[in-house]
């Protein structure tokens, strides 16, 4: 198996050669990928906000942001600066502790989930054995924060929004987890690295989307619902609930919700691309191409190319999915709360169960194609 580029090993070896003990070298390495991912996630907000505004504008025959930076790329920065300088208001009869904790509890798990997002064979913060399960567990913390902020705002719209958010997240987590389970069944591992490796080798033909088309759709719909993207944005339905649980928030606390929603969207798109679209794998397998022209997989320049291509592929797939999410936003009307719950419990859940059973049956019948 191609191990790919190993930055950690090289970094630690270089420091050990300089006369630092291996433990200290590893400790020095630890914060680097975290900081890189944190910065990457923050930059992804700018990119996503810009994409969202520009694509929305194009879909409505508008121009979109134009004056803040070249082509309006700094619009998100302008919004952020405005939010930072706004007065931080806590309503008089709100619960101040819960009111402050709410947005933090919503945002932190989203950033934490980036722990398990791989951009290459070794380009991941930690290759956890429970990988994808950690993400499911972390994403179920967010509704607690939403409920907290909805309740503590002491506002009926906020409370309704928070309750709706909790109901929505809980209902859609189940079909989502079942869809993930079908993928895990095929790769025999919860680790995101193993899931991608199981799809590798055959280029675009090996991706899970061909083996799990129903699972892909279920997961994408459920991910949109988890992110409260437009067909499912009823926790903050402005026509009915003002802004749902965000109603009483201003300044940076509101900014945290805003940041959380966009990072969560990118994260969901990344997870979809890892689970179903082959992660960092290119549509045409690079290792196959390399063997075709007779270059060894351990050649340094090939490893650098593979690694950078892998990062670009992951990001490209994720942003293609973000594009679809933005387009869906302007295509579909918001569904009602009863329709939302009906759809989650009466359609997605049975379909996801059938999908899981089918996958298990196919795995027994065709162990070659379905990872026996």
């Amino acid at each position, binding site marked *: 198996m191609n191990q790919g580029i190993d930055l950690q090993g090289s970094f630690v070896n270089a420091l050990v050669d300089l006369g630092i003990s291996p433990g200290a070298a590893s400790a020095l390495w630890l914060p680097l990928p975290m900081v890189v991912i944190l910065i990457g996630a923050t930059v992804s907000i700018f990119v996503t906000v810009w994409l969202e505004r520009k*694509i929305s*504008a*194009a*879909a*409505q*025959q*508008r*121009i979109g942001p134009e004056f803040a930076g070249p082509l309006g790329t700094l619009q998100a920065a302008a919004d952020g600066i405005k939010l930072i300088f706004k007065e931080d208001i806590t309503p008089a009869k709100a619960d101040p502790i819960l009111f402050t904790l709410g947005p933090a509890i919503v945002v932190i798990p989203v950033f934490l989930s980036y722990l398990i997002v791989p951009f290459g064979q070794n380009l991941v913060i930690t290759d956890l054995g429970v990988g994808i399960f950690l993400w499911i567990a972390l994403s179920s913390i967010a509704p607690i924060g939403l409920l907290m902020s909805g309740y503590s705002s002491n506002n009926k719209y906020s409370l309704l929004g928070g309750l709706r958010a909790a109901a929505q997240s809980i209902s859609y987590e189940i079909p989502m987890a079942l869809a993930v389970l079908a993928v895990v069944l095929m790769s025999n591992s919860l680790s995101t690295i193993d899931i991608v490796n199981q799809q590798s080798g055959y280029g675009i033909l090996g991706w899970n989307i061909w083996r799990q088309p129903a699972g892909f759709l279920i997961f994408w719909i459920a991910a949109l619902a988890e992110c409260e993207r437009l067909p499912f944005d009823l926790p903050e339905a402005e026509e009915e609930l003002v802004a749902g649980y965000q109603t009483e928030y201003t300044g940076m606390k509101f900014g945290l919700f805003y940041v959380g929603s966009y990072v969560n969207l990118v994260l969901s798109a990344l997870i979809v691309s890892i689970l179903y679209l082959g992660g960092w794998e290119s549509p045409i397998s690079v290792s196959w191409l390399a063997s075709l022209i007779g270059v060894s997989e351990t050649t340094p320049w090939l490893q650098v190319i593979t690694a950078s291509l892998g990062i670009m592929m992951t990001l490209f797939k994720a942003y293609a999915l973000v594009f679809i999410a933005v*387009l*869906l936003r*302007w*295509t*579909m009307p918001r569904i009602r709360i009863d329709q939302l719950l009906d759809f989650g419990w009466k*359609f997605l859940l049975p379909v996801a169960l059938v999908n899981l059973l089918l996958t298990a049956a196919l795995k027994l019948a065709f162990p070659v194609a379905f990872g026996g």
Partner: protein
Amino acid sequence: MLGFLKQVGDYAKESLQAAKYIGQGLSVTFDHMSRRPITVQYPYEKLIPSERFRGRIHFEFDKCISCEVCVRVCPINLPVVDWDFDKTTKKKNLKHYSIDFGVCIFCGNCVEYCPTNCLSMTEEYELASYDRHELNYDNVALGRLPYKVTQDPMVTPLRELAYLPKGVMDPHDLPPNARRAGQMPQEILEAAQKAAPKETKTES
């Protein structure tokens, strides 16, 4: 058993139909992305109001005969006409006239019915102010003429959709003498006047 299968089949068919409709909707929004934006960059570009635009009302103090027809035809009796009767000349003497544009609905009844044509509609529509009482225009404010969009050096005037040549949707970068679609009002009038003598001849 068969009834159950039929139910399942119908349900699957409905879901597929829903998916098809979503796909159709997505293709519509995707198609719109390749269309040109219709944005008018407002403070820098402005649309030229049409001839019949009902903007802020203009009032000519000297023409007014204080008949108060405008007050009577107004849906809410809005114009305030302050006059007293001059016994020597036996005429009404107008002292003040005002209209509150915070309340006016720009229906144009007063302009329509004014016997001396002292009221008229302008093309001014930028009436924003910090205080609603500033919208209560007295006869001096009502007598001011708005600055025309076409004469403002800071503004690029753009033609409205009905004033563009046939088939053109984008008002930017038009040739300066591009003709609008259809006949101009004066052309229709000329044609009517040419046709009219013939008609009278045939009648007589």
